């Protein structure tokens, strides 16, 4: 007719108001954590996606020392054709690599025939670039997106387009100095205006790689970097290690390493924001643990204190200490379970509601970013497990006290 669980449920129902209040507190904590994880997680995923899929790629390979002097976009630290071939051979054989794109990064003077300003440029093969950073075309806010660009065309960053008052179809001139010090100029047609995003390269203009070669008078196929896109970003650490292991031992004539490999995390300052979000999530989880610990422990201490005489009775009639311990631990477990279940349901409904409501927000210069919170089953299970485990832990001390209680003292308690 009844067992430990049934008895525990009856005892929880005995103190309805207290049970409801404690469960509500746990529910509140679970909802706060799950909503924070889902919102911050989707924001993080969106930003990482934007950083990697529209600009950096997941991994980049440069000549050793390039990144340290990237601010000056040095042309004397380009990868030579032979070196590029070795990297390409490795990448072509890697099944985790979805695509890669060779790039020449350069600085130039941008002239609209009235005014001149400096511009940072990323010279790419449009087909390979679109495979490597597929969201790049989404950044074209004005102009034709089809095919990205062709030779003789330029995608101008939004800020420069505004400052220099250039429009789609206008002709501009780029003047650049090559690594030998000779200056060359070339005219381009403005193909599109490119939205700027946070991070390195986020405000670079884009030209065709062949145009960069002619502008810089590069004879062979030397490049500044190779950006790599993986089939699954989860494989990044594994592929990174493999590339490092494969390219690391390659030395130049001075017995120095030729290549340097970086993940997007090393390249983008957003990684620090992502880490801060992770840290905040951890703190919120610790707060949840504290809420559950204090509320369950408080309730269970009260429960034991109020039922001392009852504990004496069941102990006197032969209930062994372990079973008395189990009775109270199960009560704590059920309180945690109840709060968690309600919290998970409320969180999932709220997340679904937020997706239906299409909430947008601004981040830096980026306007109208759509918040689409999601939560993985793993996160839900982890939070639920933490809450229930802490509920059980918090019940242990009062339950232990109840189990160790002397039956005579307990029976005399009024």
């Amino acid at each position: 007719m009844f067992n430990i669980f049934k008895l525990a449920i009856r005892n929880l129902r005995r103190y309805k108001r207290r049970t409801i209040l404690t469960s509500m507190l746990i529910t509140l904590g679970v909802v706060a954590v799950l909503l924070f994880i889902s919102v911050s997680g989707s924001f993080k995923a969106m930003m990482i996606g934007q950083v990697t899929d529209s600009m950096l790629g997941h991994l980049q390979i440069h000549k050793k020392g390039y990144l340290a002097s990237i601010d000056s976009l040095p042309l004397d630290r380009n990868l030579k054709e032979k070196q590029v071939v070795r990297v390409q051979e490795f990448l072509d054989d890697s099944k985790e690599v979805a695509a890669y794109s060779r790039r020449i990064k350069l600085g130039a003077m941008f002239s609209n025939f009235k005014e001149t300003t400096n511009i940072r440029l990323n010279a790419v093969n449009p087909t390979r670039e679109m495979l490597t950073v597929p969201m790049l075309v989404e950044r074209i806010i004005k102009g034709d997106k089809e095919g990205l660009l062709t030779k003789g065309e330029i995608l101008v960053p939004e800020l420069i387009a505004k400052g220099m008052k250039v429009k789609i179809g206008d002709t501009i001139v780029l003047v650049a100095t090559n690594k030998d010090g000779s200056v060359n100029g070339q005219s381009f047609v403005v193909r599109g205006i490119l939205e700027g995003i946070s991070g390195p390269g986020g405000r670079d203009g884009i030209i065709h790689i062949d145009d960069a070669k002619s502008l810089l008078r590069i004879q062979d196929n030397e490049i500044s970097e190779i950006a790599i896109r993986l089939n699954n970003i989860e494989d990044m650490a594994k592929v990174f290690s493999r590339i490092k292991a494969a390219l690391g031992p390659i030395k130049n004539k001075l017995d120095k390493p030729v290549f340097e490999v970086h993940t997007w995390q090393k390249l983008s300052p957003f990684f620090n924001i992502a880490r801060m979000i992770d840290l905040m999530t951890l703190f919120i989880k610790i707060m949840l643990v504290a809420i559950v610990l204090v509320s369950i422990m408080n309730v269970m201490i009260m429960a034991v204190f109020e039922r001392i005489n009852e504990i004496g009775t069941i102990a006197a009639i032969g209930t062994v200490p372990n079973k008395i311990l189990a009775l109270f631990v199960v009560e704590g477990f059920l309180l945690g379970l109840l709060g968690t279940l309600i919290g998970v349901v409320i969180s999932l409904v709220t997340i679904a509601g937020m997706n239906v409501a299409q909430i947008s927000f601004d981040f830096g210069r980026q306007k109208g970013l759509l918040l689409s919170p999601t939560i993985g089953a793993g996160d839900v299970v982890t939070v639920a497990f933490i809450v229930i485990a802490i509920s059980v832990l918090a019940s242990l001390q009062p339950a232990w006290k109840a189990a160790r209680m002397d039956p005579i003292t307990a029976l005399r308690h009024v």
Partner: protein
Amino acid sequence: MSLVVAQKLEKTYIAGDIVVKAIQGVDFSVEPGSFVSFIGPSGSGKSTLLNMIGCLDPPTGGKLIVAGEDVSTMNRVQSAHFRGETIGFIFQDFNLIPVLTVAENIEYPLLMVQNQPQKKRQQRVHKLLQAVGMNDQADKFPSQISGGQKQRVAVARALVTNARLVLADEPTANLDSKTAHKIIGLMKNMRDEFGTTFIFSTHDPKVVENVEIIFTLEDGKLLQKSGGNHV
């Protein structure tokens, strides 16, 4: 063979410098199926003696054999198992579990202490409900029944495990005279029906006039035994 045998039984409490000799070298025996009471003024050691027989409090000296077992050497878990198998308790305040129905209260020792199968539990509970005349109140909670009915349920709970010995500490103290008589009559009937030994500690003359053997205690010493065999 005696169900309870005490030889030079002692219980001393020490609290700091204060030493209280609650029971001082008591010898007695209780035969199976007896209806026995320990009487005496407050502080005479009645409850202490009952607690020791019930394996709730170990003796500090002498020997105490209950149902053939030397209970003075048992640890906490062993004594809990022993109580669950051999001893039933009836308390002054009834001590029913408020969240369980009458039937569930009676069933509790069979399920939570003896782990009996459901069919056997149901049969025993039904039998005891009938025996104490609480069949029609089986689904009520303790808060929905009277004091006398609560004590009937407590009697049924004490007997449901086929306990060989039932210890009742002031079982009629919280009952009116008429109900107290009924409860004593019920316990006597139970003794006759199930052959269970009942040991009381009481002040209540209603209980005293109904028991067959009376042990009188004073200052932790056994003064006399009336009825049955002499000490």
